[in-house]
């Protein structure tokens, strides 16, 4: 009873597909709900504090959902910079950014300001992606006390629903690179159902490919007078690869691409932006012309490419804007989550039950000491035996 799974079935078993994939409307709805809940809470504790002060119910100036998003995005970028500062490999970076993004799907910056969370997230990612650094070393290099790094960790895990695997496009991009280089060399591993003319024909087709358009992100531009040689082909492929990699490093992580698309779609979209004729050629060798998935796949890749293209570095908050937003946040943030370190320590001790246990332990100790001091002769049992022998 053999059950055959293809690669798509494999992806459908991942937690990223099951829990962290959304339609655009679904994503927006989720964010809206999170923000509304945060706002309700904000108004609750605002009225509480106002009643203490005796002032009237002045409307609290909270961050709008747009501002929240931008603040989170700013810290996604901050995570990227910090990971580069540590010189960690790119999977750590991508994982950390995605953890932060996922965290803020179900929590709001009003409750947990990203400034206190992003270091924890990065530490968690370095542990998950097998580039572990000791906590003391990490805390030292990032100039933060170690308990501040550890305190929000459990909340982050809860927000992540304990699913720590982030499927990334980087390894897949390497695979595509390998295949393209082999195609240029005249070797092909045919996909089933695809009608190609054979290896030699594909090689010729590749050589006859048109130049990348002006808008392409790849650095490669052919010398106008020269004929395409195989070395030029390799250069073209490598240039396309590095351009795609840069796109994956930046825009892909800082947009909602990971929530709305799958890693292969993201990487092919990045490649599409880098060198469109090359990508179309490649997809022609992969997807059979008569399959009904083919047009859908192509439109999805195009949509993802649009999303990646629409991002620009200027969207990210500048330092001053960030400072301004954070000041505003100070005024309206949830006061109960202010002392994360303290609440973490309480939770570790065992919560409120810990205090009662301490009381009992103290009482027992006092009783024991008293008993030792006065001696066993004062206990009722000893008294009766001494009477009998007497």
């Amino acid at each position, binding site marked *: 009873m053999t059950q055959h799974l*293809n690669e798509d079935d494999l992806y459908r078993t991942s937690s990223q597909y099951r829990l962290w994939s959304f339609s655009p409307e679904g994503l927006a709805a989720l964010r809206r709900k999170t923000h509304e809940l945060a706002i309700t809470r904000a108004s609750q504790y605002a009225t509480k504090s106002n009643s203490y002060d005796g002032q009237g119910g002045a409307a609290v100036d909270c961050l709008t959902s747009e501002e929240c998003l931008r603040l989170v995005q700013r810290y996604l970028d901050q995570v990227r910079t910090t990971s580069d500062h540590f010189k960690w490999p790119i999977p750590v970076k991508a994982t950390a950014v995605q953890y932060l993004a996922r965290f803020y799907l179900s929590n709001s910056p009003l409750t947990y300001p990203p400034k206190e969370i992003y270091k924890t997230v990065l530490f968690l990612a370095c542990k998950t992606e097998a580039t572990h650094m000791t906590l003391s070393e990490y805390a030292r290099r990032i100039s933060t006390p170690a308990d501040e790094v550890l305190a929000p960790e459990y909340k982050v895990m809860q927000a992540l629903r304990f699913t720590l695997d982030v499927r990334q496009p980087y390894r897949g991009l390497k695979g595509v690179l390998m295949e393209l280089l082999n195609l240029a060399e005249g070797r092909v591993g045919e996909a089933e159902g695809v009608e190609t003319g054979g290896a030699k024909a594909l090689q010729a087709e590749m050589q006859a490919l048109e130049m990348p358009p002006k808008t392409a992100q790849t650095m490669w531009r052919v010398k106008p007078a020269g004929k395409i040689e195989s070395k030029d082909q390799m250069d073209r492929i490598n240039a396309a690869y590095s351009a795609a990699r840069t796109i994956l490093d930046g825009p892909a992580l800082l947009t909602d691409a990971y929530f709305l698309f799958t890693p292969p779609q993201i990487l092919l979209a990045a490649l599409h932006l880098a060198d469109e004729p090359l990508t179309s050629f490649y997809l022609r060798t992969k997807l059979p012309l008569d399959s009904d998935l083919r047009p859908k796949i192509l439109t999805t890749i195009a949509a993802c490419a649009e999303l990646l293209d629409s991002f620009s570095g200027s969207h990210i908050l500048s330092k001053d804007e960030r400072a301004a937003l954070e000041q505003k946040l100070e005024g309206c943030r949830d006061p109960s989550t202010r002392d994360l370190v303290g609440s973490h320590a309480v939770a570790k001790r065992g919560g409120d039950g810990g205090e009662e246990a301490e009381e009992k332990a103290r009482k027992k100790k006092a009783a024991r000491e008293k008993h030792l001091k006065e001696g066993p002769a004062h206990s009722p049992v000893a008294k009766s035996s001494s009477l009998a022998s007497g």
Partner: protein
Amino acid sequence: MSRIAPPKVMPVYKRDPRTGVVQSQDDVCPVCKSARYMNPSLRFLVNPECYHKMCESCVDRMFSHGPAACPIKGCGRTLRKHRFREQTFEDIKVEREVDIRKKVGATFNRREEDFETLLAYNDYLNDVEDITFNLINGIDLEETNKKFEAYTRAHGKEIEENAQMAVQERQSFSAAQKLERQQARERREAARREEEEEKREVEENRRDVLNRLASGADAETVAKEGQRVQLKKRMDRQAATERQRQLQAAEDAHSECNNKFVIKGLKTKQKPAPEALVDPFGGLRLVDSYFTLQDDYIWEGIQEARKDVKQTAGGYDVRDYAHRSLVAAFSGLGVFVADEITQRDQLAQKDGVVGEDVGLKDAEMIHAP
């Protein structure tokens, strides 16, 4: 005032060389109180009726004129002289238990082949052990004895058949053993005879050669002839033994079971069917549908890894890396997140389940401090 207890006299234990029974100097017959000190040849007998021991002389005295009551105080059971016997075990309880087991075993003598399933056989054994236990410890004696008799009445014939089979088996087993020993003896004899023959022949040959030489024949021709004769004799002998062996084999073919080495009690077991190979993936197979793995990729990363001894010495195949990269490149290409997730949410709503129920609901986490 404290009393110092007198030092205890350790009884002297001796083992009777003839019967092997451990005797101690102060063994006393409970009936006539005669000690071994006075009669060194004191022997105790025991009756399986009540397991009370008495000296031989008491038994002779009391029970020679027919059955009488047991003289031990409190036990009045009628005992017969012929049932008295020497105690085999030191512990009288063990003796009693062994007797009971023998009795039960004589009645409940079914075999494993008689049962359809192992479970049925084990249940039977369990019941038999229950009965035995009850009899030994005197629990529910009436009921147990009734069960016993009921079984005996119901299956009397089968019990007898089984007993007969056991007896026959034992006989055939001893017969087979005897045959084995006889054959071994014969083989040894034959070997010895062969050796003697050889020695005799060598002697004869030497004498013959000497005679010939003495009578003046040519030395060389005599030597050659002598060798030829010797060789011929050896060949003949080998042919003869070969023929003998063939005859024996033919004989064996007729009486096959005589030559088998019989072990008593061996069941004809069927070899269990060979276990199916364990499939570590439980029937799942990953199929590459978007690509076919090639043997070699010219990308320099792969080429370098292939040449690097540190990578390949342990048996690592770089194609694993290539395969994994390509699977990662395509796993999810045909998955349309927006449509599939919307569909799933709609279905979930219809069923009434709110989304993915993993325990924590997303929206509620904001309230968790």
